[in-house]
């Protein structure tokens, strides 16, 4: 994640403010950007709190309609092997036109979020596989470093795979207006932003790893900086 413009789309995305085509492109980008995925989850947690400001109970009659409609709606099978699947036996009751209509709505409604979660799960599996692949490379090298203020940074790099696994653990909590920023440093000592982290993180970095000589971790103002603020909280030489 190096293109700053794409990175700022996490905000509009969690607010459902991206036009259709941009939403689709960003969701594609999310599959390969661990930092963005993490940030989306965090910002979403904050965005939904906005709903507290407008809470209003629905008309009581709505509940009877919903409860009656679910009797005719089959739940999706779980994705995780081993999860319970005892939902097929539904009681059958007389249907009113309303519940039929509601059931039809429910079936037609292939909720975007459900797909989102499905894709996210696939993405977690893929991320795990990518990590495992990097760790399995014969040329994989591990570098540990203490983070100033507490915590550990570990980078496993593979020149052959041109990829690295970065693990940040037990990082100290930052002030509200600060964020962690991860960098790759090239042989000319120029730092290239890899992404932001609000705390502990495990992620895979792909591309440009082979040409880098070090990974750096800095504390930056919220939103990140174009250049690292020194001294760095951690610097891990990888070459």
């Amino acid at each position, binding site marked *: 994640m190096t293109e700053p413009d794409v990175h700022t789309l996490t905000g509009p995305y969690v607010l459902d403010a991206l036009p259709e085509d941009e939403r689709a492109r960003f969701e594609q980008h999310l599959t390969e950007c661990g930092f963005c995925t993490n940030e989306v989850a965090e910002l979403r947690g904050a965005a939904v709190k906005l709903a507290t400001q407008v*809470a209003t109970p629905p008309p009581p009659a709505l509940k009877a309609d919903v409860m009656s409609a679910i009797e005719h709606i089959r739940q999706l099978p779980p994705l995780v092997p081993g999860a319970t699947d005892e939902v097929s036996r539904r009681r059958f009751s007389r249907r009113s036109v309303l519940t039929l209509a509601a059931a039809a709505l429910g079936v037609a409604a292939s909720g975007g979020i*459900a797909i989102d979660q499905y894709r996210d799960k696939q993405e977690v599996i893929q991320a795990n596989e990518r990590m495992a692949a990097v760790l399995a490379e014969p040329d994989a090298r591990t570098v540990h470093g203490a983070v100033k203020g507490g915590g550990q940074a570990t980078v496993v790099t593979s020149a052959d795979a041109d990829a690295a696994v970065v693990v940040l653990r037990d990082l100290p909590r930052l002030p509200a207006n600060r964020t962690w920023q991860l960098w790759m440093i090239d042989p000319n000592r120029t730092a290239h932003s890899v992404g932001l982290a609000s705390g502990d993180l495990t992620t895979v970095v792909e591309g440009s790893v082979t040409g880098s000589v070090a990974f750096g971790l800095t504390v930056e103002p919220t939103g990140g900086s174009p250049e690292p603020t020194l001294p760095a909280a951690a610097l891990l030489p990888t070459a």
Partner: protein
Amino acid sequence: MPAPTPLPWPGGSSTQPGEVSDGDLLVRTARGDTAAFSTLYDRVTPWVFGLVRRILRNPAQSEEVTQEVMLDVWRTATRYDAARGSAHSWILTIAHRRAVDRVRSEQAAADRTDLVGARSTEIDFDQVSDTVTTRLEVEQVRRCLDTLTELQRESIALAYYEGYTYPEVAQRLDAKLPTVKARMRDGLIRLRDCLGTTKGATA
């Protein structure tokens, strides 16, 4: 993926110690437990309906979309993954997406044109009901919103409460597209840090 960090801040649900969490109810719902779904319905629909109505304005459409959301929760509860955020956050994300999709549909857009005069970018705090949420939580969110810059707050409010896309927000606020995108993001980051939320956690 890092494990979700426990939240120092209660989820949206005002869960008391010893009370069953929304996350537990959703897990039971996923097993076809209608009693659990019924309790979950009572817990979350004030947020769902309030949010949907805020975006759509039209009461009949709001009831319809609220119903769609809750049926969707029932149908897709099996796909909920606690590692990705709280049950409350998951349900409200579904609700927001559905309400926004509806408001952007052609008919709703036409309806909205008629309502433009009645629309305000202010957050309508008066709609808060004491019976469905704790005063504490409402106050904290409001206080955190006050820490945002005006442009951050307005960009977020127009998108979240009105369902506008960021190009529409930019037009209404007479701001540049990259500026609005950035204000939405840094405003949410500030809100997150102020609220102490992490991944909308708490099951």
